C-alpha cells in the first residue's frame, strides 16, 4: 500500500513541476511571425525551415535580449490581424512603418531601409513614368507599400494587379501577363540574380519613399523598446553587418 501511495505522490509531484516549467517557458517565450515567401528576407528552405535576413536578424535580436524565441510562418495579409489576436507577439517580416499600420500596431526603430523599383523584361522600352505606363499592366504584392504606391500614384492610368505573394507576381512577370512589376528593391535584386530572374532588369530610377522597416508589436507592448535597444546593440557590435554581408554587397541599414 505504501509503495502505491508513494508512486501517486511522485507522479503528482512530477506532473506539477512539469506544468510549472511549461508555464514558465510560455511566459518567457517570444513568438515571432514572419511570412516565409519574401526571398531573401524570409523564405522556407527545402527542409521546411524558415530562413533569410529577417529570420537571422530575429535570432540575433533574441540572442541579444537573451530571450527564448519561436519563429512561425503566417500569410502576409493576415499577419497584422494575427498579431492583434495574440497568436504571436512580434512581426519581423520586412514590414514598412506606415501611418496606417501605426494606427493599429507599434513599431520598433528601423532595422533596414527600403526603396521601390520597377522590374521589366530586358529590352522593354517602357518608360516608368505616368505617361510611359499609360494603359500598361503593372503588378505588386497585395497589402504592401509597393501595392499601395501603385494604387495611389498610378491607379488611374495603369491596370493594377495585386498578388498574394511576391513569388506569384514574379511568375506573372515571367509569363508576360505583366508589363512591369513594382517591388521593394532588395528582394527584387535577389530575384534578378537567380535563374528565374534571367532576362529581367530594373527600369528607371529607384523610388525613395522614405520607407523604414521595423518590428511590429501590439500597441503599448514593452517589447517595442526592448527590440529597439537590441537593434542598436547588434548594429554597434557588428553582428548586423555580418548578417547584411551574407545577403547584399552594400549596407541596407
Amino acid at each position: 500500500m505504501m509503495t502505491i501511495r508513494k508512486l501517486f505522490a511522485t507522479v503528482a509531484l512530477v506532473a506539477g513541476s512539469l506544468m510549472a516549467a511549461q508555464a514558465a517557458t510560455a511566459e518567457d517565450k517570444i513568438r515571432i511571425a514572419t511570412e516565409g515567401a519574401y526571398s531573401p528576407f524570409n523564405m522556407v528552405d527545402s527542409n521546411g525551415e524558415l530562413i533569410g535576413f529577417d529570420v537571422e536578424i530575429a535570432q540575433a535580436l533574441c540572442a541579444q535580449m537573451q530571450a527564448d524565441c519561436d519563429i512561425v510562418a503566417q500569410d502576409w495579409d493576415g499577419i497584422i490581424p494575427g498579431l492583434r489576436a495574440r497568436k504571436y507577439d512580434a512581426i519581423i517580416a520586412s514590414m514598412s512603418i506606415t501611418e496606417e499600420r501605426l494606427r493599429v500596431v507599434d513599431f520598433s526603430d528601423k532595422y533596414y531601409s527600403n526603396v521601390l523599383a520597377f522590374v521589366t523584361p530586358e529590352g522593354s522600352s517602357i518608360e516608368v513614368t505616368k505617361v510611359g505606363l499609360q494603359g500598361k499592366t503593372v503588378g505588386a504584392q497585395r497589402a504592401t507599400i509597393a501595392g499601395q504606391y501603385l494604387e495611389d500614384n498610378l491607379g488611374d492610368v495603369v491596370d493594377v494587379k495585386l498578388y498574394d505573394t511576391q513569388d506569384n507576381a514574379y511568375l506573372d512577370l515571367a509569363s508576360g501577363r505583366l508589363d512591369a512589376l513594382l517591388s521593394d528593391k532588395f528582394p527584387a535584386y535577389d530575384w534578378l540574380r537567380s535563374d528565374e530572374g534571367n532576362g529581367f532588369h530594373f527600369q528607371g530610377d529607384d523610388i525613395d519613399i522614405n520607407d523604414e522597416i521595423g518590428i511590429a508589436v501590439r500597441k503599448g507592448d514593452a517589447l517595442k523598446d526592448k527590440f529597439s535597444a537590441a537593434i542598436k546593440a547588434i548594429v554597434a557590435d557588428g553582428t548586423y553587418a555580418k548578417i547584411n554581408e551574407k545577403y547584399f554587397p552594400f549596407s541596407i541599414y
Partner: protein
Amino acid sequence: MTWEWSVIWQYLPRLMEGAWLTLELVLISGLIGIALAIPLSLMRASSQFWLKALPFTYIYFFRGTPLLVQIFLVYYGASQFEFVRESILWPILKQPYWCAIIAFSLNTAAYSAELFRSAIQAIPVGEIEAAEAMGMSKPVQVRRIILPRAFGIALPAYGNEVILMLKGSALASTITLLDLTGMARTIIARTYTPLEMFLAAGLVYLAISALIIGLFRFMEYRFNRYQYYHHTDTPKGLDAQLRDPHIDQ
C-alpha cells in the same frame, strides 16, 4: 479592438463592384458547366465501356483535386509553357478572368455531370418503356423524356451545387481578380479592419445565396409541379345525386 461601422459604408460601393464580378463568374461558368455536363452525363449513363471511361476519368480528376489547385494549374501552370504563350489561345489564357471561368466551368461540369447521371438513372423505367412503346427513337427519347425528367429530378441537388460554386468563386481572388473576396482583402490591406470587411462580405454572400435559393425554389415549383398536392374544393352546384353530404357540411 474598436469596431468601425463607417468603414463598411465607405467601401460598400467597391464591395458591390466585387459582388457583381462574383455573380458574373458564377453565372457564366454555371452556364458553360451545364452545357458540358449534359453530354458528359449521357456518356456516363451509357452502357458501353469506352463511352463511359472518358467522362469517368474527367470527373474523377476534377472531383478528386482541390479547386485551388485547378485554378493555379490553369492560371500559373499553363503560362509556364512557351507553346501556350505563343498559341492563339494566349489572349484568352492571359486574362485571369477567363482562367477563372475555365477552371470553375470544368469543376462544376464534373459535379453536375455526376448529378445528372444519377438523375438519368433515377427516371422510372416504366417511363422509358412507355416511350419505347410509343415508337420513339433514342434521340427523341433523350430530348422529350430523359433530359426533361432528369432536369426535374436533379434540380434540388443542382441548386446545392450552384451555392457551392458561389462560395468556391472566392478563390478567384488568388489570381488577382477583384471579386467579392478579393475586393474585401484589398480593402482590408488598407484599412486593417478584417472583422468589419469580412462581415460585410459575408452578408453579401448570404444575400446572393438567398437569391439563388429563391430562384431554385421557384424553378422546382414550376418544373416539378405535378409532384405537389393541391387541395381543390369540391365544386358546388354539382348534380345533387353526386354530392357527398359528409364533405359538404
